[in-house]
């Protein structure tokens, strides 16, 4: 598509410098190894393929979360959101979860979403923790503003981390933000943030080589469970 680059430059605000998230390897309860890594802008279309079908599952607010993730990643891909990042979780290359977030400014992070397609292995907990790790430890921010859209998310994040309620509006437009301060992050890190670095080169190479997207029927079953006789 031809761009009017003069106009485009006005629509693309300047981005803050963002250091990359160093990939890590997490051992899950079933003994399998999960790579947590940051994706590049070029990888967004592949991730969108995985997110698209989930936008129709009403259960546990998956539809809202997936629709918003879809829009946020698309906007990042097409330069309409700045300072966004997306971390994905892969097991043998297979995409099993993602988180996205952005820097509001140098000091404050704005947590967007957590989406997992494989339930029951605490992947969401690992991924949310990785997102906070990136904001505080690598992007060196002072605080992250967080809201939950699903009751499960609310219970998990607010209670697990003991987040501090504020009256600061959140970009997602719903409830006011809860805050994870740097102090709170370091107070809970031991309990909630795990992973080994560096990721062994062969495992990392496999993850980088291809983001495998699980078929729609399997995802539906993972999210909504089984049905019928």
């Amino acid at each position, binding site marked *: 598509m031809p761009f009017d680059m003069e106009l485009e430059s006005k629509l693309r605000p300047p981005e803050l410098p963002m250091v990359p998230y160093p990939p890590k390897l997490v051992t899950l*309860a*079933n*003994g399998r190894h999960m790579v947590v890594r940051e994706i590049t802008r070029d990888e967004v279309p592949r991730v969108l393929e995985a997110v698209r079908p989930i936008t129709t599952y009403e259960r546990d607010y998956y539809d809202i979360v997936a629709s918003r993730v879809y829009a946020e990643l698309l906007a990042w891909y097409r330069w309409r959101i700045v300072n966004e990042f997306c971390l994905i979780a892969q097991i043998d290359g297979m995409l099993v979860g993602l988180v996205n977030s952005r820097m509001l400014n140098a000091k404050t992070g704005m947590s967007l979403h957590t989406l997992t397609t494989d339930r029951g292995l605490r992947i969401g907990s*690992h991924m949310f923790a990785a997102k906070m790790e990136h904001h505080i430890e690598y992007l060196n921010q002072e605080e992250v503003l967080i809201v939950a859209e699903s009751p499960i998310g609310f219970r998990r994040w607010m209670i697990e981390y003991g987040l501090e309620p504020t009256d600061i509006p959140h970009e997602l437009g719903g409830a006011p933000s809860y805050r994870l301060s740097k102090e709170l992050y370091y107070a809970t890190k031991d309990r909630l943030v795990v992973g080994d670095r560096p990721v062994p080169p062969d495992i990392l190479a496999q993850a980088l080589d291809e983001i495998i997207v699980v078929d729609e029927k399997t995802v539906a079953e993972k999210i*909504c469970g*089984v049905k019928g006789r």
Partner: protein
Amino acid sequence: MRPVAIVGAGMIPFGRRDDDNLMDLLAYASLNALDDAGLGDKGVDSVYVANMGAGMLNHQMSVASALVDRLSLMPAAAEAIENGPASGASAIKNGLLAVASGYYDVVLVVGGEKMRDVSGWRATDFVASMTHPTAEYIYGITLPGMAGMFTRLYMEKYGVTREHLVQVAIKNQEMGALNPYAHVESRITHEGIVDSWHSRVNNPPVADPLHLYDVCPVSDGAAAVILAPLDMAKKFKKTPVVIAGFGQATDTHSLQERQDPTDLKAVTLASQQALAMAKLTPSDISVAELHDAFTILEIAESEHVGFFPKGQGAQAVIDGKTKLGGQIPINVSGGLKARGHPVGATGVAQVVDLVWQLRHELPEGRQVKNAQTGLSVNFGGFGNNVVSFVLRRGE
């Protein structure tokens, strides 16, 4: 009293079943059992529905009346049985007595629960409502919390360690992974839940000293059996399984009022009654389904039933005595730990799994070779209402 046989058995996969409601679950499991019995379009004389929480969880009452309507079983007699997590076995017991008395011939017993209509913390609250309202419930005690307090005492008294509990969890999830009806499909590894420092996220404490993988999941599911007099059993197409014995006993509502809170008297009494009625001893049993809502309970029940002396159940797990191929295979289905624990369904599901074992219908890797006798323990409250069955393969 005439002898009674199980002539049909059916289950549906347990787990999260977001697209099915409670009546769907009960109807599907019932149809599976009716079809298994080869009843075709014939009716049954009476229906017993085991369910603990339809009123609180699904805002529906009189589920037995609704079910006979769904299944076109009118004018069969029908009623629901609520006896906490022992509802399933209680319903079978009531069906059994009705057939044994000669009053009814063909009885459908179905147990089901749809727990995931509500959030996890509502489900936790629902289960906690079994505790004493003013002496226990108000403190925020949960059933895992009860089990945690029990585990601490059991560890202190009998030297049970976290490692023993971990081995129960690994064994049962290993078997659950082979069971197409199990909620939990994943094996777990020692590395993933204990050794790796990542396990602090994977397997956090839930009710210290119990961790996440010591506790059964919150599940939707249903299971059903068809009962008939043994002398009618040859009219049905499957090998009959005789209910050779049953027992039921109760204990104090509050754990703290038991002389020795580590002594699960109702388990001992119920299983002794069942074994005595069947004229068997624990060593005669080929396969057992014990109520492992928490890993500690599998160990404790294995001792209270008499498979092992008190204090030796934990070592028996380490020695592989409770595995498939061991001295007494326990929870080859994966147990509540892996099959899941839809509270009203569990007692029936345990019996269905034993029926499959005794008919020798399970694939290699799950079938206990030449299984002739099975024992179940369905544990209500925290051991305040326990029902046990002894089943025997029929001719």
